[in-house]
């Protein structure tokens, strides 16, 4: 995608590899990644140039011949005199004018929403010509109802929610889409300090746990974890859904023994001396999805340009947040009362992964939370197997169809290509949860393979 089209050695067609070597193009790109322009604008320009050159020389061999003969600079000048490359670049960067410029995006004040939130103070929305108001919302049920009522144009949701809404589980069925994941990993199991000696889940009989919502990765991961240790999550422990901000207060008041919740509330419990971090969800499933950026299908089809601009800002922000070196700056940007309303040091510990564990130790895990927008369909299928496993989803379901309708991997991939990022191969995703591999092509077998289930 970032190949210099004015380089005669570059192939713009789709052949094994531009250098003629006997390896895949992907490997070649990785090997020659240094040649990729660094700035986003350069990357975009490169994409536009490639498109124009491809139009001028439909046959790749001719272009290469031409470039070899006259040199890149001359070629560029020659083409610019005929075709206004600058204008084409600009038009591309802007896309079509958004149909709706003033948008409302709802979020829950947790670090999962980092890209959605930081895009406001750090200008990722305004860069796409959008005037976005990010609205703090009290809980998942409220954000769902406000989104269904079209008060929000787009919203931060838990990754299982768009599936549940589309299937009509827990609400009326409304076609909902999820063009981008926000974060992967980034959750933790926090236990009250009095349970310091009960680190084995087998000792947790009778514990009261909180999760943010019934349709959340938190719920599925906690159930999975205790079930793997032989506890039935519906009989041996109790799980209630509590809005994330209220979890620390409930833990302090001894209303619950622990929670599998989103940050900053795990780290916040440590900060206030109330609980300790038992484990990071990364230790259960490294790379699991958590929160998502979602829009209704209706909004996406009625406002295609606004939708594209919004998605671009989110992918852009997510890519920025993915870089470790930007994390401290982000923590500072999202700490004020207008956004997360948390002490900066708490956010910094979460985002940089150097954190106090609540037991007197300092741990380092840079992968504690990561940001990766790609909505793998395999994630959706895994989520549906768990909905099935715990009886939330009674009817039979066409896993692959629902997954591809809700998790818009193709949209995201084409958008990433346009922006000069490399999308991953959608079929290649291995999911391993607590050592057990998941085969997305056999979801029913997976559900049946568990000893503790509600089917």
């Amino acid at each position, binding site marked *: 995608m970032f190949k210099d089209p004015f380089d005669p050695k570059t192939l713009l067609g789709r052949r094994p590899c531009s250098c003629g070597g006997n390896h895949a193009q992907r490997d070649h790109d990785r090997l020659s990644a240094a040649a990729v322009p660094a700035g986003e604008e350069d990357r975009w320009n490169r994409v536009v140039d490639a498109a124009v050159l491809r139009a001028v020389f439909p046959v790749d061999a001719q272009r290469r011949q031409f470039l070899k003969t006259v040199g890149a600079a001359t070629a560029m000048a020659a083409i610019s005199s005929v075709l206004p490359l600058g204008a084409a670049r600009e038009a591309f960067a802007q896309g079509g004018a958004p149909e709706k410029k003033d948008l409302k995006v709802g979020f829950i004040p947790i670090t999962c929403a980092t890209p959605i939130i930081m895009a406001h103070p750090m200008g990722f929305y305004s860069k796409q010509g959008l005037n976005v108001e990010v609205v703090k919302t009290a809980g998942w049920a409220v954000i769902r109802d406000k989104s269904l009522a079209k008060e929000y144009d787009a919203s931060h949701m838990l990754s299982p929610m768009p599936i549940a809404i589309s299937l009509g589980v827990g609400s009326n069925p409304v076609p909902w889409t999820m063009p981008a994941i926000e974060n992967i990993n980034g959750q933790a199991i926090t236990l009250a300090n009095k349970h310091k000696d009960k680190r084995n889940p087998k000792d947790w009989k009778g514990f009261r746990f909180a999760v943010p919502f019934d349709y959340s990765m938190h719920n599925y991961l906690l159930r999975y974890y205790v079930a793997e240790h032989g506890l039935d999550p519906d009989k041996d422990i109790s799980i209630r859904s509590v809005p994330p901000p209220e979890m620390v207060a409930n833990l302090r008041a001894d209303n619950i023994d622990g929670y599998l919740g989103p940050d900053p509330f795990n780290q916040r419990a440590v900060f206030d001396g109330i609980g300790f971090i038992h484990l990071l969800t990364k230790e259960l499933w490294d790379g699991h999805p958590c929160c998502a950026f979602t829009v209704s299908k209706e909004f996406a089809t009625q406002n295609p340009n606004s939708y594209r601009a919004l998605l671009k800002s989110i992918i852009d922000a997510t890519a920025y947040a993915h870089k470790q070196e930007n994390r401290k700056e982000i923590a500072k940007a999202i700490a004020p009362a207008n956004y997360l*309303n948390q002490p900066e040091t708490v956010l910094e510990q979460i985002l940089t992964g150097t954190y106090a564990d609540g037991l007197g130790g300092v741990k380092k895990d840079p992968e504690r939370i990561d940001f990766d927008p790609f909505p793998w369909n395999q994630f959706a299928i895994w989520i549906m197997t768990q909905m099935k496993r715990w009886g939330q989803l009674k009817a039979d379901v066409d896993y692959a169809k629902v997954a591809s309708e809700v998790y818009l991997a193709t949209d995201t991939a084409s958008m990433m290509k346009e922006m000069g990022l490399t999308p991953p191969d959608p079929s290649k995703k291995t999911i391993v949860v607590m050592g057990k591999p998941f085969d997305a092509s056999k979801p029913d077998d997976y559900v049946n393979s568990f000893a503790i289930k509600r089917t």
Partner: protein
Amino acid sequence: MKASLGMRAGLLSVLIFAVIVGIWHVATLPTAASGPAVDPEYAKLVGAAAATGSKSAMPTPADIGATIWKHLADPFYVRGSNDKGIGIQLAYSLGRVLLGFGLAALFAIPLGFLIGMSPLVYRALDPFIQILKPVSPLAWMPLALYTIKDSAISSIFVIFICSVWPMLINTAFGVGSVRKEWLNVARTLEVGPFRTAFKVILPAAAPTIMTGMRISVGIAWLVIVAAEMLVGGTGIGYFVWNEWNNLSIANIVTAILLIGLVGLLLDQGLAYLARLVTYPE
């Protein structure tokens, strides 16, 4: 002698306040004896209390005072759509309450009038009113959000539905219990039905109606905090919720004091109006 009673009551109030603050101050004094020393690197990452092995404590009265002063010094700032000054938040809440309460009054007083004039309708509607009256605002909220599909209107609807009942019942009761002699006198003098309603029944029932309004406005003010905590966005209820996120007890106490103060002013305002319409029998 009366003035000195007021004076003594005032003195007693001050004394009670001083005792409460004193107990609070002593109870929240930082404990000198700290727990086991922790790694300084660890201590930097956690709050001051957690660094000494304890939970973060209640703020002291001095902390609260400083917080109140901070809010009162700059009540109208706007730092983004989710962070506005406490004065602005109170104004949002008051606006919602007055709108919901006003609509409820416009609905309840005429209807209560009609109900009160007919004992049959009064008894027929009574079971519905009695069942709907004690329902909590939070129970109405999901229903309102689901059917109205607009959170701003939903919160006003919730205030409306919770504050309508006392006014309705009191109006009906006041109208129903106007002295028979007065109505008979009006009839003897051949006063028309409208004139009777406005010149005889309304003034006679006014004190009872005002009492109903006074109860209602109190309820509306109770409801708004709960409704805003649920719906979020703006208002003093949202402010409390937002500070709860941050476990900032000092800010929450500030909000509690201000909510109480505004509630008192609303109540006193209606009490003053009620005094205007009372009559000696």
